[in-house]
């Protein structure tokens, strides 16, 4: 039986179960914390760092999606420091990839694009890295455009945790990190991919999309995930 704890978020008294994360409890109380890599129905990895919050008494910022609540915790989600870091993080996502919204399949429906608006990014003040990244069109129905990938690893997790195929993984290190299919072979040759399209739909940007979609034409459906998880747990 889980224990109820009480804590403060932004000086408001709230309560939650001790096995819940700060993000869970904040959402239960309608307190907004921005997230990019987190997706209901998947495990949390704290990859994007957008859900960073301040906790009184801790000298480092913590990711709300992975840190559990504790009795007497005092959490702050909207300090000036956090706002500045969030803007900076989104700017860094833009500057390290090749994000050209105007010719993107998800223009107008992109989580990165809307997050930029939400955290107040008006210009990318950092120099663009303009990396040379690859595109794999070999799959019969889908395309991976690594130019638009922000390494949230939602595709890796959904393929492993929900579909059970584990086609996706990360390859390379540091700035060279990128998502790969199987052992870095072409997606079209993958013996493990079931073609279920879950990775395509959980991808927050236009990095994964259905072939044949033109600019602005890709709408992603993610609402199925929590149901899938729930139904599988029942069995």
């Amino acid at each position, binding site marked *: 039986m889980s224990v109820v704890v009480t804590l403060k978020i932004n000086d408001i008294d709230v309560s939650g179960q001790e096995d819940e994360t700060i993000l869970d409890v904040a959402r239960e109380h309608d307190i907004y914390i921005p997230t990019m890599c987190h997706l209901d129905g998947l495990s949390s990895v704290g990859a994007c760092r957008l859900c960073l919050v301040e906790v009184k008494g801790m000298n480092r910022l913590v990711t709300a999606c992975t840190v559990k609540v504790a009795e007497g915790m005092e959490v702050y989600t909207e300090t000036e420091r956090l706002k500045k870091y969030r803007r900076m993080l989104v700017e860094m996502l833009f500057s390290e990839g090749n994000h050209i919204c*105007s*010719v993107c399949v998800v223009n107008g429906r992109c989580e990165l694009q809307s997050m930029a608006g939400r955290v107040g990014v008006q210009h990318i003040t950092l120099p663009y890295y303009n990396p040379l990244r690859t*595109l794999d*069109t070999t799959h019969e129905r889908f395309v991976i*455009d690594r130019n638009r990938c922000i390494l949230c690893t939602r595709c890796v997790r959904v393929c492993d945790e929900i579909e059970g195929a584990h086609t996706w993984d990360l390859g390379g290190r540091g700035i060279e990190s990128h998502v790969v299919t199987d052992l870095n072979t072409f997606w079209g040759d993958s013996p493990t991919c079931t073609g279920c399209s879950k990775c395509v739909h959980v991808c927050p940007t236009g990095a994964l999309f259905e*072939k044949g979609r*033109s600019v602005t*034409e890709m709408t992603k459906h993610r609402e199925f995930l929590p149901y899938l998880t729930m139904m599988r747990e029942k069995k």
Partner: protein
Amino acid sequence: MSQRIVIDPVTRIEGHAKITIQLSDGGEVEDAHLHITQIRGFEKFVEGRPFHEMPSLMARICGICPVSHLMASAKACDALMAVRVPRTGTNLRRLMNLAQIAQSHALSFFYLSAPDLLLGMDAPPIKRNLFGIAEANPQMARDGVRIRSIGQQIIEMLGGKRIHPAWVVPGGVNEPLTAEKRDKMLAMMPEGLELALRWLDWFKGIHEQFHEEIATFASFPTMFMGLVDKQGNLEMYDGYLRFVDADGKIVVDDVPPEEYATYIGEAVEPYSYLKSPYYKPLGYPGGLYRVGPLARLNLVNACGTPLANRELTQFRARANTRSSFYFHIARLIEIVYSFEKMQQLLDDPEILSKQVRAYAAPNSLEGIGVSEAPRGTLIHHYKINESGAMVHANLIIATGHNNIAMNRGVMQVARHFIKDGQVNDGILNRVEAVIRAYDPCLSCSTHAIGHMPLLIEVVDPKGAVVAEVKR
């Protein structure tokens, strides 16, 4: 002492160019060149992209004619998919293309060229712009803005936005037309037509004042090229390539657009980023030809709509329809044609059909799309790999076809107006105006970055710049 005259930037055109005029020791024009000083690189950086992105990527070549690039690109993609676009999908594309032609021609005539025509070639440069027109003839400025706005509003109603709409897709268009929007468009047609006819009449009334310009604005014999339909009439979206000679006699007809490379070669000159296409059987540079409104009206059997047909007959009754000065009149006739044709398309009840798009995977590794842009024939030629990624793109943009002719035109005007090395602003403006008559879109045709400057340089035989006029 000989000198070189440089016009840099050439003003009131889309893109950057400079002109150099080489004078001999006696002060006579020895040589003249139009330099296109910018590079864009679209053909190269699209390599690797999925072909379904191409229409929207290519539309970014231009903010004035995004629709033209959408058309040619989408048609090349249709060819890659090897599908037949549903009839309504085709007609909706036609509708947008005509709206584009009307708005772009209005921009060229009223905003860019009318200052020379209304205020005179020798008017002070500070007056030679749309504001000068608004002062001298407010009605003209208003009507020009209005024609453009009707065209742009139709594009917006069809595609969701005026510039770079993502509505034209491989296989057709991605949304059918609603009756409400159709009715709004229809309501604007009579006004557009009336305004176009009003200024066509005005221009017919005054153009004789420009007899010297008519005689010298690239009035040399060239071939003309453009698309025609099955009956040999004016066709902006589809059809067959036709080449006629300077006397209007058909040289080659019924060329399927995908066979363009049989007849068109592409040459490169060291002084310009703009390539010089030429008619292959006559070689380079002898095989020069012109495209655009003047070419189209010189090569078609008829326009195919009543008022435009009437105007075309009158136009041809004039002498010397070869002069590039008549690009202006041709543009106005084509605006009339566009409104008449749009009306016809909108009157067809089938325009509201929901069948507007064909779907398919890539079925052909090579695709060619050709359509008429406001400035002339536009060719997009793509190659893809089996999985649909671009491996090669070749673009021949309308302005490029006119490159050799523009260079000759500059030479002709410079020779006629520059005597004994004497140049003044009015003369320089005429040199620019010959370029302007072609309404070149240099940002389209060279894939470049930046703004359009004009400089005229006068150079001695050793190549040293003796005089320079800058704007």
